[in-house]
């Protein structure tokens, strides 16, 4: 059983003036998570949100300012009781963004290193066997005696993975391991990572800012913002029912319209005359503020009114971009600009845009309505800090 539990985890970095705890990039402010044994867990967020700091705290590379970290049944960090286990005592594997392959060691030496550090000692023959096995798993058999500088980026990435896995750690940590690769390679390795996780059976925690990676890999995703968990759930929930404007924006909703819930259930964006019908992700009362999130792919453009569906709007076409299987359209509606999709057979590449009047529509299930979270009173905020 290697579950990982974080309780009220804080990490503050010293500010310039002593005593001032300014919000800093990468700081974490009270994270509570329970990651189940064998789970593939993804920490998702923009740069500076604290996801890497959280991962490094779990690895033992950062000492938490406050809170408890538990791996399996062992408390590895408890700031209040002064407990802190060094990284080498935590029996984990970690894959670094830069790969951090040791340039003076061969592939085999890099991969054997975690095995050689194990106590009680593992016999040489057993280490060699295990190195072969892991290199086979990542598809690098035959490259044992190469040095990292003689490998391609994708191969280096696989060596880093093999090294993280070689000692059969109970927990594997991934710090944006795919961000330095080109798109095609990233796509292939993403699948490999998930396959290898399933085969190895260890718990995995994966940090990324790429929502597509989170979708492909995760059992559950935690979206982090300003060092706090903004939303936690399976990928489908995060992507289909974002709980806040921030999450919606981060997972790629192009159109975000602030507005008010009307009596009768409609949502009226500010400055609009007509309400939208959509799907509420959380209960809200009439008069409540909120936000409508619509993906460009769910907002359709028609050139004539008869084709329009529910939530019909009229707007002026401003620009059209060819995307291969469809067009992306920029449409002005009232004072706002919306991004929508124009079907491939309704336009032609290079056709000039002459301010055509167009009709927009969206299925109510594609209009995600997010109630604004009540802002905490300023006094409370200060107390928390």
């Amino acid at each position, binding site marked *: 059983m290697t579950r990982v539990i974080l309780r009220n985890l804080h990490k503050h970095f010293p500010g310039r003036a002593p005593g001032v705890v300014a919000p800093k990039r990468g700081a974490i402010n009270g994270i509570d998570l329970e990651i189940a044994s064998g789970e593939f867990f993804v920490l998702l967020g923009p740069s500076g949100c604290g996801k890497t700091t959280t991962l490094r705290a779990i690895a033992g590379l950062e000492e938490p300012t406050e809170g408890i970290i538990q791996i399996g049944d062992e408390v590895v960090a408890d700031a209040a009781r002064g407990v802190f286990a060094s990284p080498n005592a935590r029996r984990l594997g970690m894959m670094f963004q830069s790969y951090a392959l040791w340039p003076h060691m061969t592939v085999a030496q890099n991969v054997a290193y*975690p095995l050689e550090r194990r106590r009680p000692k593992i016999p040489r023959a057993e280490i060699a066997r295990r190195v072969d096995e892991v290199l086979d798993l990542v598809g690098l058999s035959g490259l044992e005696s190469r040095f990292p500088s003689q490998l391609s980026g994708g191969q280096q990435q696989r060596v880093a993975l093999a090294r993280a896995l070689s000692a059969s750690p109970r927990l594997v940590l991934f710090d944006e391991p795919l961000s330095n690769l080109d798109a095609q390679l990233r796509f292939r390795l993403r699948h490999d990572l998930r396959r290898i996780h399933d085969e190895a059976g260890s718990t995995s925690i994966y940090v990324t800012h790429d929502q597509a990676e989170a979708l492909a890999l995760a059992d559950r995703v935690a979206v982090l913002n300003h060092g706090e968990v903004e939303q936690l759930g399976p990928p489908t929930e995060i992507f289909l029912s974002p709980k806040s404007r921030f999450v919606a924006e981060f997972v790629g909703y192009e159109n975000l319209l602030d507005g008010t819930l009307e009596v009768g259930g409609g949502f009226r964006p500010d400055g609009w005359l007509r309400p939208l019908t959509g799907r509420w992700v959380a209960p809200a009362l009439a008069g409540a503020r909120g936000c409508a999130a619509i993906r460009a792919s769910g907002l359709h453009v028609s050139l004539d009114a008869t084709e329009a569906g529910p939530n019909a709007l009229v707007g002026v076409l401003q620009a059209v971009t060819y995307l291969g299987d469809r067009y992306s359209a920029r449409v002005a509606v009232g004072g706002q600009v919306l991004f929508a999709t124009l079907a491939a057979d309704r336009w032609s590449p290079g056709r000039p845009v002459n301010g055509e009047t167009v009709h927009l529509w969206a299925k109510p299930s594609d209009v995600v309505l997010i109630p604004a979270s009540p802002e905490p009173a300023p006094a409370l905020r200060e107390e928390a800090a």
Partner: protein
Amino acid sequence: MTAPAATFDSPLGPHLRRLGRAAPVRFAPVLAVLFVLLVWPLAMLAVGSFRTAAPGFPGEWTLKAWGSVFNVPAVRESVANSLTISFVTTAAAALLAAGLAFLSERTDAPLRRWITPAIVVMFATPGLFYAVGYALLGNAYTGLFNQIARSLTGLENLTLIDIETWGGLLGVMVLKKVAVIYLFLIGPFRALDPSHDEASLTAGAGTFETFWRINLPILAPALTGAILLGVVTGLQAFDMIVILGWPQDIQVITTRIFEFITVAAEPDYARASVLSLSLLLLIAALSFLQAKILGTRSFFTVGGKAREGQRLKLGRLRWVFGALIGLYLFAAAVAPIGSVAFSSIQPFPGVYENLSLRNYAEVLRIQRVVPSLLTTLALSASVGLAAMGLAVAAVQAGRAGGARTAVVIRFTTLIPLAMPGVVTALAIAWAFVSTPGLQQLYGTIYLTGLAMIACVMPFAMQAAGAAMAQISPDLQEAARTSGASGPRALADVTLQLIAPSFLTGWFMAAILTSGNLDVPLLLDAPGQRPIAAVIYDLNNRGDFSMACALLMLTLLAKAGVGLGGYAVLKAGSGLARRRLSSLAKDRS
């Protein structure tokens, strides 16, 4: 899922450690050593300037030294001399160095590829070697240069150069100082971005206009920094002035400090300390100014991309510039080394018969010479190793210990940069003699060694810092998460990766130590005089040829160790490469 109660009797037991105090405690030994070696001596030097007695002796508190020292006319004269020498040599050397850097990096002048290697050799050549070489070359009566001129012209009384004059002293110091300033300027010159030039050229400016309007302003901070560095090294100059200036009664601040302690009938430690501190403050102010100028306006970056920009075509003038480079290389590198080499086989300066290697045999027969060579070898090797080891530990502590630790360490290790060797030696003497338990070190080679570590510390920090900066912290962290303890990760990853830079730094630190004359002259360890001091003694009592033979022997020894080390390093990496390619062949 609920968390079970946290327990302390987990399998992690022995690895658990207390938070908070842990990080500073780990690096306490490094900080303590730096304190004892660098901060404590400075403090004791300050204390010493208020004492009536010598270090280790009971005395009283007094302001007498502070009040009286600058009233002595001789002291005032030496302060004036220091400033004159410093500014005059800096102005001339900066012009020469900038010109050479420009010719070497930006033009197609012939011989330009020889400039940098020659200057590196000059930089590593101790001032002692230089001074003795020139003293013999430019002596008004017996100097080789004048002798050759006489035999060429047939004029019996012709004296082209007299080195034992103000002009001679300044000239020799300029030639040596060019090396320091050049090495400081070459990076920025090399890093000049050719695209800036190209942008200027496409905008319609000519090559010379581009140099004046674009390159020079970009280089301004580096030039200013180099000039201040020149002034600082000028104020610290000691060995050249002791050899070339003393015979003509030219005294500077450092020689006056030396005189207060060793030559005067009654050593006056308090006045020496006052003079040292004053010099220190002046240099610290200049260094601060230099850091300010360079720190905030560092326009240049030494990039990884080696782009060969368009070199300035000198046309027919290139032979003129080539000749000037040749002249400089001859005057600054060939002449002094040739002079020492030739003098070492002469029976006596000015005598051109019976040239032989007799001097070498004779100098080795002098009782203390062989032990002194061995002492110097052991001393240089261990001082270099200790300084580099301490520097690596200090850089590592600064990296792991947080921003404040890093600043403290950086500042501490820069202290000796502002201290001439004479002042460092005096400060170390004060500190160790007045500390019970450390007193026993006085008069031993160990104290000499400690003072030399302090002297070479800024260089070692520079070398270690540059080497460690190449190693991403990720690499060590990867070892930690793979199960390696902190020291183990340092040994397995960082130390192995910096090994070649570490060895080079060790060698350079040892070279600098072996040429240090200031420390052994001040901190005498009876019976264990380093070779620089022995050569100085020989030269002082007129055994010029034997001094030269010994200089040549040490030069050859250094070259031998250097080339040997280089060959070992090369062979090591060659072996690794061969093993690698044979393995690759097995696989295919």
